Structure formats: structure tokens, C-alpha cells
């Protein structure tokens, strides 16, 4: 009985140790746990601002409300290879160092692919925009409130009149 208690205490302690790092997050590091990308808190904030520039809050939630920048980081961290990740980080680094006005200008320029843009910066923007859009359209908010995704359609009509559908 005493032995069991002792084991329990040890496990409890171990659990506490495992929990510790997430409580005492390394200062200045991103708020989301990443395996491959080394993103600073500052860069995370820049990313949040950029994603909000891409999909802003209107009468419906924007990128920050939906935490799309964290989704972008999750996808970049897990679903991209080292080469793309490097490009993304170098681009993020470049854009982070621009002052806010230049940053905004860069995003607008990148969106219309102006010539002579910083290459990594442009590629970074492409990945960011694509994943922000994907995160938005696949968010719970959009899928349940704006463009409804049905889990159980229960029907099929191969001659659905178009006028009624729009």
C-alpha cells in the first residue's frame, strides 16, 4: 500500500515535471508548440498582423479571431519539408524587419506579384496567403455559419437547378 502511494507520488512528480516547460515557456518564443520552426513571439505577432491584413475582421471574425496564423504555423511546421520551411522562415524574417508601412506595402505588392520583389519574401507570402485562406474556409466558424459543410447530406440530385442554388 505504502509502495503504491510512493509510486503514485513519483508519477505525480514526473507529471509535474512534464508540465513545467509549457508553464514556463521560453521567453520570446511562439505560443504554439512547434517541432521544426523556430519562431519568436515577435515573428508570431507579425504573422498574426499579416494574416489579419489578408482576412480582416468585418462584421464576421477575421484571421486573428480565428487564430489562422497559428494554423499557418502548424501546417508549415508539420506538412512542409525543410526546404520550404527555410524559405518561409527567411521570408518571415525579411518581412518582420520591415517597418509597418513598408510591410503593408510589401504585402499589397506581393499580392499582385510586382516585379523585383524579395524572392523569399514573395514565396513566404504565397504560402501564408494560401494557408490563411485554407484555414479560413475550413474553420468551424465558416463551415457552420457561412458556407455550410454537411456531414450527413442524405440526398443526391444530379439535375439541381442553378437559379435556386445561388
Amino acid at each position, binding site marked *: 500500500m505504502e509502495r503504491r502511494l510512493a509510486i503514485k507520488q513519483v508519477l505525480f512528480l514526473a507529471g509535474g515535471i512534464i508540465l513545467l516547460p509549457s508553464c514556463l515557456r521560453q521567453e520570446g518564443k511562439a505560443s504554439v508548440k512547434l517541432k521544426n520552426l523556430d519562431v519568436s513571439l515577435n515573428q508570431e505577432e507579425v504573422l498574426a498582423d499579416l494574416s489579419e*491584413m*489578408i*482576412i*480582416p475582421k*468585418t462584421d*464576421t471574425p*477575421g484571421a486573428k479571431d480565428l487564430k489562422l496564423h497559428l494554423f499557418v504555423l*502548424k*501546417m508549415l511546421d*508539420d*506538412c*512542409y*519539408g525543410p526546404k520550404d520551411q527555410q524559405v518561409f522562415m527567411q521570408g518571415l524574417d525579411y518581412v518582420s524587419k520591415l517597418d509597418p508601412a513598408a510591410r503593408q506595402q510589401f*504585402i*499589397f505588392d506581393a*499580392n499582385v506579384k510586382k516585379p523585383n520583389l524579395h524572392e523569399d519574401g514573395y514565396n513566404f507570402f504565397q504560402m501564408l*496567403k494560401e494557408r490563411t*485562406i*485554407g*484555414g*479560413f*474556409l*475550413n*474553420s*468551424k466558424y*465558416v*463551415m*457552420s455559419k*457561412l*458556407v455550410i*459543410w454537411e*456531414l*450527413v*447530406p*442524405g*440526398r*443526391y*440530385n*444530379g*439535375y*439541381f*437547378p*442553378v*437559379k435556386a*442554388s*445561388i
Partner: protein
Amino acid sequence: MVISLLKQAFEIMANLNIDSVKQRTFDAIVIGSGISGGWAAKEFTEKGLKTLVLERGRDVNHITDYPTTNKYPYEFDHRGELTFAIKQENPVVSKCYAFREDAMHFFVKDKAHPYVQEKPFDWIRGYQVGGKSLLWARQTQRWSDLDFEGPLRDDFAVDWPIRYKDIAAWYSYVERFAGISGNKDGLAELPDGDFLPGFPLNAVEDHFKLAMNNKYGNRHVISARCAHLSQPKQIHFDQGRVKCQNRNLCQRGCPFGGYFSSNSSTLPWAKKTGNLTLRPFSVVESVIYDDRLNKATGVRVVDANTKEVIEFYAKVIFVNAAAINTNLILLNSKSSRFPEGLGNDSGVLGKYVAFHNYSARINAEYDGLKQFTTDGRNPAGGGYIPRFRNLLKQETDFKRGYAAGFGAYRNADSDTSGIGTALKSQLLTKRLGPWKVGSHMMGETIPKVSNYVKLDEHKKDAWGIPQLKISVDYDDNDAKMKKDYVEQLSEMFTEAGFKNIQVDDSPQAPGLDIHEMGGVRMGNDPKTSMLNKWHQLHSCKNVFVTDGACMTSTSTQNPSLTYMAFTARAVDYAFNEMKKGSL
């Protein structure tokens, strides 16, 4: 005194051993719980035979073991995508269209079960109760005599020992229970079955059907026949299954039992009889052959977790381990009578493996019929074009022919060019694009002695069983047939007024079609085949093979329905032989 005590002890031990053997003895053993194994289990247990089903993977119970089935896209960490690490670790299975975040737990990972590729072969596997029946594409078509008579007419492989009349009633039998949706199309090359109502073609699929009828007469576009309950009957309700809800999330496992799988249908049915013993985590090492009795007596199993070796015994053994693994088990079942593998007097075991050529697709757009779109989802996937090449006589420079899938759909796309509020409103304003149409080929490949599987001499798996070496490739006939498919479908698409025709004939390795067949082929002559017309090994009559391994030729139909019918027929035969005392 001491001696009598010892005697007693020996007797007790002997009895214990007898009890243990008794506990491990059944009327029938079925190796594998996939589409054909599940049917063997259902048929044997319904007939009152104590049946052991051995499954190498874990148990998967209907509904409760479908963890992703009711998830919305945003509930997946990566919204359905595979991570880079998973793709890197699984170059083979990652190529499969259904290996995605929502269903990857039902697929074998590359590293867990390695095999040797003498030539590239994408071996897609599902090691769990239900096997690939959870994951299949659910397309079901009958064979006709134009298929069974193929090898004889066109001089390849060996003659099938059966014809359509032998199997027709069994097709009906399995169709009624499994629930097959389709229309009575009245085509000699694709016999009608005992169908539930077919899923309808959509506006453009119907347009294509009509255009093909007008132009060719013998090129038919029909509603794809599939194992979905479009309108269930009492027999389906009795299985606990209800109407298909058009979710098209089938690969996750269906909580409605809307499509046929071993898990939703045959296995629970077998369990209800009280005659089923299902043993997951049982890797079959070999079938045990008794040289004195001249028959198989049981199966040697390695427990997947403990690696303990256990023997099970039965009068009859059905090998339904999925085509390639059935070959592996028989090749590894060596005895002094059969040094080259069980029943392999002919030397053809493992050879004449064939598959379906899926390596060409064709896509296009259609500007017409814009007043229509689709609403909901079609589980049948659209249309099916039965084989029309070389159907009644040889008419091309290649043997046999191909069936083709055909589907049409309209995407609601949104413009993504903007940024900020402009982009946001673009994203929420869906615009219907033009109709898009697509087709893929399903070509018959010719079984050849040079397409084989065999045991690797050195490499073993984690359970001490030799790894398989796979050497399967396309040939010149496949190349010519593919070219013809591209030409004919391009012509047909043009005829129907489709524009912007794009051919995708990027190569893919055999295996990815997941229609591997043969190696334990049927035939009349024991010198050139492994199985007789009842699916018995010619030289070991109490061992039956009714999965893809038994296929003498492949024709162009999706094969699962035929395995179901073969299995029900073979069990019926085995049961009657057992009653007569001949097995």
C-alpha cells in the same frame, strides 16, 4: 506408490493437452477477415459449423472503432492532409488516394511490414478486422462469359474451370445480402443483378450516355453499380444497417452501415450465430499438412503481440488472406510432400500474378447544361463504361480491353485574387465553374509467368516469416491498350462536345490499383493450375482459396463482388462434402 503418482500426473497432463487441443479445434478455419474471409465466416457459421477466423491485425468493431467517422474537416489537425514526416516515412502507402488524415489508421504503414520490390510495386494493405473491406471503392460488377472465356478465346493463361452459369445464382445470393445498387441495363457484357435502385446519373453524365449511344451504339455509359444501400430491405435492417446517407466519407467506416464491409455486415452476422471465434493479432505462419493423412490439419499462428506460436486445427481451411498474402502463406507452408509450398505440384504457385491497369486518366470541361448542377453527394461516383474493345471478337493490335469510370461535377470556386475585405467577400461568394468531366481506365492485364511473388531467401519479418519478393510489371500489351484508351476516350469526349481535354498518363506502379490477383490460379489441369473449379487445391482438397489469389485472369470488373460469390459457393460445396464425409 511413486510410480502410480507419476502415472497419474502424466495422465492429467495428457488430458490437459487433449483439452487444449480440443479448445484449439474447430470445424473450419478462415484465414483473413476481409471481404472474402468475412463471407466465409458468415456462410460456415450460418450452416452451424464452429468457425475460427484468424486476423493478423487488431479488432475493429462496427461503429465504435471508427474514431474519425463523425468529424468535421476542422476537427482534423491538418484538415485532412498528411504530414511531411508521414509522407517521408511512407512513400508507398502515401500514394493511395484514401490514405489521408481521416483514414490512415486503417492502412499498413510501409515500415511496419516491409517487402522486397524486385520491380516497383505499390502494395496497399489493411491489416485489421475487416481488412480492406472498410476502405474499398465499393464498385461491384458481375462477370459474364465474355470474361470467363477470355483466356480460352484469346490464348493466354489457362481456361477458367467455371462459367457464368456456375456463379450466376451465387452473385444473386451475395448481392441480396450485401446490398448492391444498380440499374437493369440489359447488357450481355455486364449481367444485371439482384439490385437495389441505382443512383442516378447527373445531367452531364446523362448527356454523355446519350451522345455515346447515338455515335457508337455499343459504348454504354451506365450508373456505376456499387455496394451501397440506396433503399435497404429487411435483410439489411436485420444486419443493423440503414440507408446510405450520401456522406461519401466511407473510408472512415460508416456508422449507418450504408456500404458493405465485413465489419458492418458479415462478421456481426456470423457472431450472432454463436459459432464464430474471431482471433485478432494472429499472424498465420503456415497451413499444417499431414503427410500420413494426406491433408491439411490446421494452421500455425504467431501471436502478433506475444510472438507465441500456436496451432489451430480444423477439417477445412479457407485461405482468404488477400491475394498476395494468400500466396505468401501457401509458399511458406512447406512439408516433405510439398517442399515448394502447399499444393504446388505444378510449380505455378506465386506466378501469373496480374492486376488492373489504372495508369491513364482523362479530364475535360463542358460548356453546356449550365442550368444544372448537383446537390448532395453521389456514393456511386457517377458512371461506368463497360468494356467495349475486343468484346465479341479481336479487333485491335492488343489483347482484351478496358472498362472506364466516368464522372461529371461542377465546382463552386471562389476568386482568391484579392486581399483584405475584398478577398474575404470573394471567398464567401461561390461561383459555379463549368462542368468538369473525368474518366480513368481499368485495363485487363495478361497473367504471365514472369509476373510473380516469391519468398525472399534471407529477409524475414518481425514474426520470423519470410518477406515477400514482388516482381510484377506492365508489358507491351498494356502500353498499346493504354494508348487506345487515351485515343478512344479523347474521341468520345470530343464527340460529346467536351473541351480542353487533358490526358494524364503519368506512370504508376502496379499495385496502386489495389486489384492484384492470381498466383494460386484456378484451372482444370493440376499440371498448370493450383485450384479446381470448387476452389480446392488440386492436391490438398480441404484447403480452399476464394480471394483474389484464385483469379485465372482479371478481366476489367472491380473484383470484390466475384470473390464474395466465389466464397459463398465454395463454402456451400465444402459443407456438402463434409456432410457426405468426403472432407
